[in-house]
Each structure stands twice: as C-alpha cells, then as structure tokens.
C-alpha cells in the first residue's frame, strides 16, 4: 500500500510505502476517545513478479464503539454487523444505509463512504482489474479527510497525522533519477533522506488517477511514522492499537 499524507499547515504531501506480509492487518486509525478504529488487511497478487509479491489492501474495516457496529469492506461485498445482526451488500448497486450513528453510502462499483456520527468519515475505493489477469487482483484504496474530528487519543498509521508534525525540507538537489529530486527532511527529531516523486489519487478518476507530488520517505516510513511499521500490525479487523 502506498500512503499519501497531506500536511495542510506545511502545505505539502509526504508519502511512504508499507511493505508488510500477506494477511497482516495494519491499523490505520485507532481512537479510543471516540471509539473508532480503521484497519486494513493485506492481500497479495496472484504471482510473484521480479522476486516480489505485491501487496494491497483487500479488506478495510471500520469499527465503532460503544454500539459495536462494524463495517467490513472487501472487494466483493460490504458487510455491516452490530454484534447481533449481520447485513451484507454488494458493490453492484448504489445504496445508502443508516444504523444509529453510522451511515454508509455505496456508489455502484466505485466507492463506499462510511460516516460515523457525522464527524468521522472514511472512503474506500474499489479497484477492479480484469478477472483473468495472471497477476493482478482487485484491491481497495482508502481516503480519510484531514478534518475528521478525532479525540486527542487518536493514533494509527494515518490517525497520528491528525496532529500535524512540524516538517522541514532542505538541501533539495538533483538525485540519481533526474526526474526525482532528493532532499533532507527534518521531522519528529529525525533527519531523513527523501525523494521527490508522485503517487496517485484515484478519487476522481478511478482508472488513471491524478498525480500527487510528494516527498517520499524510504524504509516503510521509518522516522516519519511513530515507531516501526510492525508496531501497527494488529490481530483482528476490529482491534485497537495498543501502545
């Protein structure tokens, strides 16, 4: 998964990849204050290519307490449960579902937006590929607005950046790749080598995406994210982060 973090005060985008294993569940947002957790489980492509198995998000789960409502989005269906009742929808139809403070809006074959108590929103985008492709698989993207109203306790691979860190980028110079400049970033007391590159935002064009130019942090975001990326691996789709 390719992470893009927009820092509104610094007016820049920072990206990093998390290169974890098939089946791992990564915590994206963990907020014990509002009781919301967002996790994503990794799937792999059908075959190894160039000695590497690509990983993607195959399942995204949004869970909210104390109601115990869980919305699990996969490339096949969107399931909602409150612990007692289970309801399932497919990507095949545009729909709106409301239960207590949770609202789900499905746009047929495109994306689903989950809104909790009108102040926390998550959009999951469906990326479908040709079914018979020998390597590629359907996967999911996730988009979380910067103005979500979390509690001060929020954390996670994305949630931690709701408290925007101070970032300074300097010493911009030509890099090995003439298209990609290099620089040094100071953040959270760390000095990190960064590379100027671009990632894709697929919200408005699901096939081609639009370019988002960002400073790329190497080694799975080390130094930019708190701790190590393995700290964000959780046991279940509804697990909060333990720190």
């Amino acid at each position, binding site marked *: 998964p390719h992470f893009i973090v927009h820092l509104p005060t610094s007016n820049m985008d920072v990206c990093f990849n998390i290169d974890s294993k098939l089946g791992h569940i990564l915590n994206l947002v963990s907020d014990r204050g509002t009781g919301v957790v967002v996790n994503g489980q990794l799937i792999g492509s059908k075959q190894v290519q160039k000695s590497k198995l690509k990983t993607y998000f195959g399942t995204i789960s949004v869970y909210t307490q104390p109601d115990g409502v869980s919305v699990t989005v996969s490339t096949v269906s969107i399931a909602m449960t409150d612990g007692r009742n289970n*309801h399932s929808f497919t990507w095949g139809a545009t729909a709106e*579902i409301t239960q207590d403070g949770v609202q789900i809006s499905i746009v047929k074959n495109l994306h689903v937006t989950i809104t909790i108590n009108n102040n926390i929103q998550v959009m999951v985008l469906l990326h479908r590929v040709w079914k018979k492709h020998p390597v590629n698989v359907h996967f999911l993207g996730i988009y979380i607005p910067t103005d979500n109203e979390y509690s001060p306790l929020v954390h996670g691979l994305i949630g931690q950046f709701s408290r925007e860190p101070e970032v300074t980028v300097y010493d911009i110079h030509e890099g090995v790749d003439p298209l990609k400049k290099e620089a040094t970033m100071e953040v959270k007391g760390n000095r990190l080598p960064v590379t100027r590159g671009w990632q894709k935002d697929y919200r408005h064009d699901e096939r081609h995406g639009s370019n988002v130019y960002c400073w790329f942090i190497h080694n799975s975001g080390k130094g930019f994210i708190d701790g190590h990326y393995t700290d964000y691996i959780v046991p279940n789709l509804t697990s909060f982060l333990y720190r």
Partner: protein
Amino acid sequence: AILTSEEQEDFEAIRGDDITVKSYKVESRITSRFAHTTVRSSVVNSGSKAQSIGFNVQIPKRAFITNFTMNVNGITFVGSVKEKTVARNLYTQARARGKAAGIVRANSQDMETFKTEVHVPPGSNIEFELHYQEMMHRKLGFYDHTLHVQPGRLVPQLQVDVYIFEPKGISMVHTPNTLGAQFADLIKVTSSKDKAHIVFKPNLQQQKKCDNCTESAIDGVFTVRYDVNRDSNAGELQVSDGHFVQFFAPSNFSPLPKNIVFVIDVSGSMWGVKMKQTVEAMQAILDDLTIDDHFSIIDFNHNVRCWSEELVQGSSIQIADAKKYIKSIKPNGGTNINEALMRAVQMLVKASNQGFIDPRSVSMIILVSDGDPTVGEIKLSTIQKNVKRLMREEFSLFSLGIGFDVDYDFLERIAMENRGMAQRIYANHDAAEQLRTFYSQVSSPLLRKIAIQFTEDTVSDVTQNRFDKYFSGSELVVAGKVLPSESNILTSFTTAAASRLDIKLESSADTDELDTELAKHEHSFTGFARQMWAYITVKQLISERALAPNADKKRKITQRIMSLAVEHQFVTPLTALLVESEDATERLLADFPKDPKHGCCSGGGGGPVSSGHTQLQALYHTPTWVKPITPAPPSQGIRGPEEWAIPQHVNLVDND
C-alpha cells in the same frame, strides 16, 4: 400433426374403435418469471360411430386463459376475450340459432379444469389449442412452474417443452420428481448462463403403465424449479416494450424479530386428522422460534382460551411448555372466531402499549380455522369490520383455512385487509407439512415498510409499490409503463427498514437493451413486460374490488378490470372467451369459474382433487358435419336445451 413413419406405426397400433390422440404438446415460454403456455392436442374419432371428443386441461388457478382455438375437420374456431355481457349476448344469439356450445370451467383448490367436448362423426380430426399466461411467484427461494400433463391415452407424439430466459442469469434449474420416478431419466435439462430448455418426450413404450399395458402412466404434474442470479440487494430492473418490471428479493439481512399470536380453532370439527396434523406442525413451528421472538397461543371453540395472557419470549422453557399445551388440546364445541381474533389483537396492542414490542419487530396473528363461526358474532362482514377496527397498521393477519368446510373467501378477505395472506390447507395426511411450508414462508421477515419509487415523470400506471413486509425467499414485483424521456436510463429507488437499519437502494436499466437481447432469443416471450404489467394490475384490481367499500367504487374498479382484460385478452371473473367459427355462425363460451362458497368437490375426502369437479354436459346443435348428442340428465339445477337459461356456472358479478 404430421407423424413420422415410426409415429405413424405407433398411431396405427393404438388406433382402435375409440378416440385416438395423435399428439399432445405442451410448450411454456418463461421470460423474467412470466410464462405463456400453449397446450395443443390433435385427436381423431377413430371409432365407427359419432362420438364426443373432449379436451381437458388443468391449469393453475393463478393463470389467465388468453385464447382457445379449435379446428374441426378444417373449420377453425378462434377465440377472443370480451366483456362478459357482450360475450354472453353474442353467445345467446348463436344459441338462439342453435349454433352454440359450452366450455366448462370448474375449480378445485389449486387447479382449474378447462374442459370442452365436441360431438363429431367417425373419422373426424380435431385440433385443440389452449393458451394461458401466469406469473411465477418466488417462494422459499425458488420459482415452481407446474404443468398438468394428462393426455388420457397413449400418444405417439407427446412432448413437453419449457423454455426459460432470465436476463440476469439462472442460478439453478431442475425438475423435482413430481410426475413419477419412472420418468425422471426422460426429462432433459439443458441450460446456459441465462437460458434453459427442459424437454420431456417419452415414446409410446415409455408412456405405458407396464410393458404390455395399453393405458398411459402419464397423469400428473410436471414441475420445473429454478431461481435467478442476484448480484445485488437492490433488485433487478427490466425495461421492455415501453414497460418496466422491478424485481426485489434481497438476502443477506438478519431476520427481524417476530411477535406471533397463534390462534387455533379447536372446535369439534377439528377432531381427528386436522387437529393431529396441526399439533404436529405446531411442534416444528414453535421449535423454530428464537429468543428474539415473542409469542403466545390462543385456542378457541365456543370459548376462547389463552395459553399465556401476554406475549412471552421464545425461550426453550416457554417453547417446551407451549408444545406440551398444544398436545393436550381436545377439540370440541362450536366456533367463536370473532372473540378469538379480538383477543389476539388485544394481546398485541397491550404488548405494544407497554413498550414490550421492539418497534422494528414484526407482529403477526396466524389463524388456523376449519369452519364458519357458529358462536358469538357469526356475521362474517361484522367480524371483518371488528378485526379491521382493532388492528394496528404494524400488525398483520395470516389465515389458514383447513379442510373443505371453511369459507376461504372470508379468510382471504380478512388477511388481505390486514396486510397478510391466506392459504388453503388440505385436510389430509400431509396437512402438517403444508402448515410448516406456509410458516416457512413467513418465518423470516427481513424488511419492513418497503417502497419502490421512481423519479418523477419517468413512469406511470405503477402497480402496488409499497409493501408492508418482505420475507426471505420471496420476491416483490412492481411493474408499470415507462414515459418518454430524453434519457435512456430508468432508475428506481427502494427504501426499506431492516433490523436496526434503514436502507435506500438504487437500480437502473437501459430502456433499449433488453428488447435487443430478447430479439436474439428464439424462445423468449417478447411481450412479457406488457403482459406482466397487465396481469399484476388486473390481479390487484380484483383484490381491491373484493374490499371496495361501496358500490360506486366497485363499479369503477370493475370497468377498469374489464377494459384491461379485454385489451390484454385475459379471461377473468369479468370477461369471457368467445370462440367463434370463421363465419361467426358457430360459437362457444368460456367463463371464469366461480369458487364454490365452501371448498369444492363434494366427492373428495382430502388432497388435491382430480375428480368431482362440476360438470356440465356440452350441448351442441350441429352444423351439417356433426350429429347432435342426447342431452344428459340435468345436474345441479341445470335445465335441458329446450329450457336453456344462463348456465349456473356463470359467475355473476357482485353488485351488478
């Protein structure tokens, strides 16, 4: 019918001093749950004397006959549906000239018998062709298409073909073994993604009851069972020929909790098989209840008794106690339906007022009765008014009429008026199974307050589009006309309430796509959407008419039914099929048969009836090529030809 040489040999072999059926072919074309069936028979009077040759077909009660034609020695009789009075007048004119005959229609519980007889000289060839249309209803997760195959004799060319086309794809299709185990291997099913063809074509030997027998073993129901693919919960919207049909059958929802009051008739007439089967069914039904459900039981004869005065939770202890209670009941005494129903409604009202009922749960009264009220309020219309007055919008009443003596029309009216449905239960050895099957249909309500709507000014003449409940395994269908529009996309919006959540689903369809697709399929029924809309509308109008509050409203509905039925050629309670020779000098008349007030079939002791249906001798005053028959003794007050009056089986329209 042209026979192959082998078939010709078969024909010669079975030909005798008798009536010979050369061919008997049944073909059904099902497109999007709508079926058009044609039954064709070619018969020869192979005897040495003039004989009556009959053509009997059993058709499902829910079907509408759309045409009947007959060719007698080259003279063709063609049918057309007309308003009943118009048809009768024309028929009467023909009768006055001695040029008329009757087609008999009679009802048993599930099937209707269409019978006609023609008296013809030896060597005569007659070809009969009957057409009818019906809509498949989904129950317990599948559609059953049934054809009664009863050629009566060995037939050289006997063939049944069922063609199915479902645009979204067929998820499963098979033929349950209802015709007889010996025929199972003779039924061939071929299916692809969206089409299926089922054919049954036994040769003469395969039709025989035994190797050396001369009787046909083929006498029963041929069933095709199938279901369709559903890739989303939003349902399936289809547009064809200026009409739309929306099918809605979601799954993957948790069932809603239920509050059920079982109201069971334990009057003296329930003694024996009926009570035994009811007790057996209730054991299984009670076991199906869960801790989320609430229930109680009221048993009534001339008194009304409650197992529990209030609804209780479906815990294992309560269920065990209820089962024991049911087993201990000894039927006796009269029948006080009014009091029993009042008590049941009051129980639900009390529970609701006390906040005991989850607002998102489903509340039902399930009434099982075998007869008319004999104690307390006995006037049915008053009971109907009492129930309607006390019931709340969120409660439903389901009625099961067990046996032949029950006034099913009454049970159906009170159910329909109170957001439920009614079903007949045959009082025989499998009544328990029938009761359980009925309960299975209503045991899993998934959604409440379903509304299927469209953007303003995109559709018109929409059939019922608001439904109180949706049960798992069933299907809601809405049809209507598509208004001209710049866009070629029609969109529907369905709202409903599930357990704890509200949903709004969107479906869309291209208005031209399906017609293009249908044109490619040889056996599809291209006019299905138009006919299905008319079928649903007429059915709904007939139900509305039965509940119309005054004569004026009833009259307006009557007019509408007649107009639609004539336009779409449906034989209904208000229209008749007039069959005329080419020069319009000879006529036959087929009316929609009326259900007998109490059951049918005086001869039957139980089970689906294949005998005992009302018979009228056909009276046919002949042209040159037919000899007259001797009139049969009058039955049920029918007078002979010299004193011919309006046939007793003609359905007189209420308030007309």
